[in-house]
Structure formats: C-alpha cells, structure tokens
C-alpha cells in the first residue's frame, strides 16, 4: 500500500493534501535559498573586494559592486609578492605528497584486503587506532627526527611521510574498495603466473580509477590547504607555500607594501587566486569526491 492511498483512507481530500504539501515545499525552498545566500556571502564579499579600490572596501555602507573593476589588483599581487614562486612551491609539495599518499595507501590497502598473513587483523586495528592519535602528540618527536636528518627548512618533512603508508584514512578507504573487487580476477592472472605487483598494476589498478580519483582529490585539498606543516618546517621565504605566504603577506612579513598601509584589496585578490584552483578542481571531480567521502564514512 502506498503512502498516498493511506492518506486518502485517513480522509484527506486529494486537493487540500496537495495544497498543504505545496505550502510546506515553498517554505522549505525559501529556507534552503536563504541558507545558500548566507553561505555564499563571505566568498562573494572577498571575490568582489578583490576588484575594488581600497577606498571602496573601507567604507560604510558597503559597496556591492565596484564603480570601476580594478583588475590590476591581481597584477599588483604578482608584482609586490613572490606569488608565482609560492604557487609553484605549493604545487610541487602538493603533487609529490598526493602521489606518495595515493600510491602507498593503495598498496597497503590492497595488502590488507587480499592476503592472509599472521597478525593481519591486529595490524589493521593498529592502522585504525592511529586515527585517534592527535598529531600534537607526535609533533615534537617528528620535529626532532627531521632536524637530525637535516631536513628543517626543506619540503621533505611535508612530502616524505606520505610515502610511508599514506595514513590510516586512505588505507581504510582503499581496503574497503578492494574488498568489493571479486578475487576471481587476480586469481586468473595468478594462474597465468603473473607476480603480485604485476597483478596489482595491470589487473587491479585499472579498476581503481574512480577510487584513485576520489583519494587524489581529498589528498590534494588537504595538502594544498595545509598550514601547520609549512608553519613548523619552513623558515626561508623562497620555500613558503601559499598558506604561509598569504599569512605573512597579511602581517607584513612578505610583500613590498609599506607597513601600516591597508592591503586588504590585494590580500583579497591573493585569497581568490589561492582558492580558485581548488574550486575548479572540486567542480571537475565533484562526483568522485563525494563518493570518496561517502565510502569512507559509511562503510565504517
């Protein structure tokens, strides 16, 4: 029996029922629309501020659209700060980190999903337990290790750890995925005498593209947006990532704007430039991204 039939049996006339539902729906629609506007305003405010004159920012009532869009704010950010350098630095660190994280996490996840070996379950519980470990606890020892290795003020402390398993979250994500692939496929290849790494590479990995895409995007965002890592390990300006460079631009440590002179319009342009690649990336791969989040969150 359907809901509708039940409603009819309870004595609703079809017409009043439909009217009531319409009213509720309009109410919900208004609410969702209001929330969407509320959520968008902060981004809009910076976006539009990035093409204002500084005098149009420091003014009440607010200017919703500049009299003359100041596109040169963007050019001035590139002139006044080593923005291009920060950008390539961030891209380098991010790309190297994503590669390591996705590659090794998929190998480890495959190991946990496909092979039986003594201690497997215990080791997997250990993997999951590291999710609970606050990074603040290992922050100091990590700093000492990387100092002893002579890696301070290099990108290595930000990149290399990603090649050592890729972290519990991603291992879990990949393991869950590999558990859904029927074992007949790799058994056939094993029968043909292919080695395990070869099976992984030529039989399994072509099936992984969606989950690799999801993991890559999640990992890309995390590294692109990271602030604490660069803050701890990078000292000289020419190694800064965008997060660090932008924070320093605001406080006056970076950029040729005289101290005390308002630079909010330039900072807005810089923020937009930092956000844009991420947003584009998100739009391009939204489907994979959401699926990755759902896979990791729900099947747990």
């Amino acid at each position, binding site marked *: 029996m*359907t809901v509708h039939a039940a409603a009819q049996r*309870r004595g609703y006339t079809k017409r009043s029922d439909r009217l009531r539902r319409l009213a*509720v*729906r309009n109410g919900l629609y208004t*609410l969702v629309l209001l*929330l*969407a506007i509320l*959520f968008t*305003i*902060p*981004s809009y*405010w910076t976006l539009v501020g990035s093409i204002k004159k500084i005098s149009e920012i*420091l*003014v*009440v009532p*607010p200017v919703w659209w500049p009299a003359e869009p100041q596109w040169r704010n963007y050019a001035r950010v590139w002139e006044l700060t080593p923005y291009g350098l920060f950008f390539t630095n961030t891209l380098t660190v991010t790309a190297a980190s994503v590669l390591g994280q996705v590659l090794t996490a998929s*190998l*480890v996840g495959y190991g*946990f999903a*496909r*092979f039986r*070996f003594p201690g*497997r379950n215990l*080791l997997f519980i*250990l993997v999951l337990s590291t999710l*609970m470990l*606050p990074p*603040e*606890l290992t*922050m*100091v*020892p990590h700093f*000492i*290790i990387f*100092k002893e290795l002579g890696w301070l003020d290099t990108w290595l402390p930000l990149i290399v750890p990603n090649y*050592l398993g*890729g972290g519990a979250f991603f*291992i879990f994500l990949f393991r869950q995925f590999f558990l859904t692939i029927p074992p007949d496929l790799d*058994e056939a290849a*094993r*029968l*043909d*005498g292919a080695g*395990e790494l*070869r099976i992984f590479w030529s039989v399994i990995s072509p099936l992984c593209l969606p989950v690799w895409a999801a993991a890559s995007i999640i990992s890309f965002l995390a590294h692109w947006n990271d602030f604490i890592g660069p803050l701890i390990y990078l000292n000289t300006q020419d190694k800064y990532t*965008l*997060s660090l460079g932008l924070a320093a631009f*605001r406080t006056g440590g970076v950029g040729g704007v005289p101290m005390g002179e308002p630079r909010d319009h330039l900072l*807005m342009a810089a*923020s937009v430039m*930092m*956000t844009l690649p*991420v947003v584009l990336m*998100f739009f391009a791969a939204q489907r994979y991204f*959401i699926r990755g*989040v*759902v896979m990791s*969150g*729900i099947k*747990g």
Partner: protein
Amino acid sequence: MASRSSTNPPAPRSQANRLEAAATADTTAAPGVLLVAPGRPWMTLRRREMLAGYVFISPWIVGYLALQLGPVLASLLLSLTAYNIVEPPQFVGTRNYVTAFTNDDLFWPSLRRSLYYVALDVPVGILLSLLLALLLNQRLRGTNLFRTLFFLPSVTPTVAAIFFWVWIMQPDWGLLNWTLSLVGVRGPAWLGSIEWAIPSLVTIDLWTAVGGTRMVIFLAGLQGIPRELYEAAAIDGAGAWRRFRHVTLPMLTPTIFFVTVLTVIFALRVFTSAYIATGGGPAYATWFYTFHLFKQAFQFFSMGYASALGWILMVVLLAFTFVQFRLQSRWVHYEGERQS
C-alpha cells in the same frame, strides 16, 4: 609465461588448488614477478601469500614504527625531561606534569577555552549539518546546486576562509556590523573582543565545516534508511514530525554518534584560526590548549614540557571518547541489534 593455457589443470575446485597449480607451473621467472621463489621447497603457497601481504603493507609498517609508535614512545620519555633542542635532554621526572597542573598560569585557562570552544562548536555544528542534510534530502529542485554551494566553504583553503571572515567581522567597515546597524544594533568588535572572540572563531569553523563532509555523511545516512519504514509509519498515521522523531532520528543515531566522536576530536584541537585571526588574543582570549602547546614547542623550545602537554591532551581526548562510547547505549540505536 610458460604456464599459460594448456599446462593448467582443467577447472580446479578450491582456491588453494588453483594457486598451487599456478605456483608449481611458474618455474620460469616471468617478467614483473615479485616473488620468484616457487619451486624451492620452503616457498609453499601459504608462505608466498604471507610474504606478499607483508611486502604490500611494508610501507605502512616502516611508517608506523618511524612516525607513529617510535615518536609516541619518544614523546612519553621526552615529557619526563627538560629539553631545549640545543642541549641534551635532562631527566626531571614528573616535574613537567606538576608544572602544568600547579605552576603554569596559562594551562587551566587554555584548556577551559578549548572546552568552551568544543561546547559551542560541536552541538551547533552537528545540528546545522543535520538540518542541511535533511533539507537536501527533500529532493527539491536544484538540490545539486545547493549541495555544491553548502559544500564549497569546506574546500576553501583554511587561510583564505579565515581571511574572508576577518573582513566580514571587521568592526568598523565589516558586513556583519553594518547588517546589525540596519536593525539598530551596535555590533561588538568580534575577533577583537574578549567575550566574542571565541564565538567568532566558532562561527568561522561552522561556515567551513557545516556543509562539508559531515553533511555528506548525514545525507548518505538519510538515504540509507529503508523507504518501507516511512511507508509503514505513514500507514500507522504518523505525521511528518513523528516520522522524523521515530524513524529518521533513531535510524540516524549511529551516524550521529560516529560524526560526534570525530567532531569533538577535531574541535578540541582548534589551532589555525586562532593563530591567524587572533594570534591567541585579545588578552589571551583565544589562547587555546593546542596554541599553548605550539608556543611552548616552537617559540620557547620547551620540547619536554610540550610533550607533557601533548600527553595530557591525549588523555583528555581518550576520556572524551571513552565517555561517549559508554553513553552510546543510552541513545544510539543499531538496527539489527537485539533489543533486550
């Protein structure tokens, strides 16, 4: 690959048989073979599988020993020392812990501020995420667009997102105080105000987190609730509110629980927004626990003391998680679990 086709036994029954056949047939070293040992008597099939398993997870084992287990033990030892990086560590017993509890003017206030942040951020954040997920689950027109709009703040780079709000909350020309002035309210200095600084940072976090992964997880949870339950409830005459109260909410409690545990852990570690937007101020108003830890470690290079602070944080997190798991049976409903 000598073993292809003809040498294979026809339709082997068990997996072990098949693998055995593959292993014994594979006497030549095929290109790309990882473990070229079949044929040798000690390399049985079980051993081969075991070894392959260990080889595949070896990056994690190295990482676990070098970057997790080792550092955790090291930090426990360091927490019993005075160590400033330059000179070798001096064993001081439990002095760091005693200092934290009795002789550090910032310790208890910073912990209290972090807990205050958690108390504001977690309930409101989870409620709002749930509300957004419920709205999106109504299958209104344009749901995909709305979902994207709600989600975008969570992919915005942290530093940029904090900047956005610094401008919104600017006391003199910020959009927020201008809006309040329209209804005749004189807004506070927000991030620059002792009372409002923490609620302001909570607002920033809500904006970035409410429509993010948490909402997506709730949405997936909502879509996982079987339709028959709603139909049955409707037949029994349950209205929208009662369907929500007695079907949606109970079915969603495992998701809410899972999300709450994670959100508490994240909120208790609040750091970046305070570092960038307020620098711990004004007058220590946003000097959070992890902020204190960071300052001790990387500004004053009190590595031993910072390690002790790290362990205290760990204990607080474990206590929170433990309590939540203990309270779980009171409100979390697992479908398929036997009711007693």
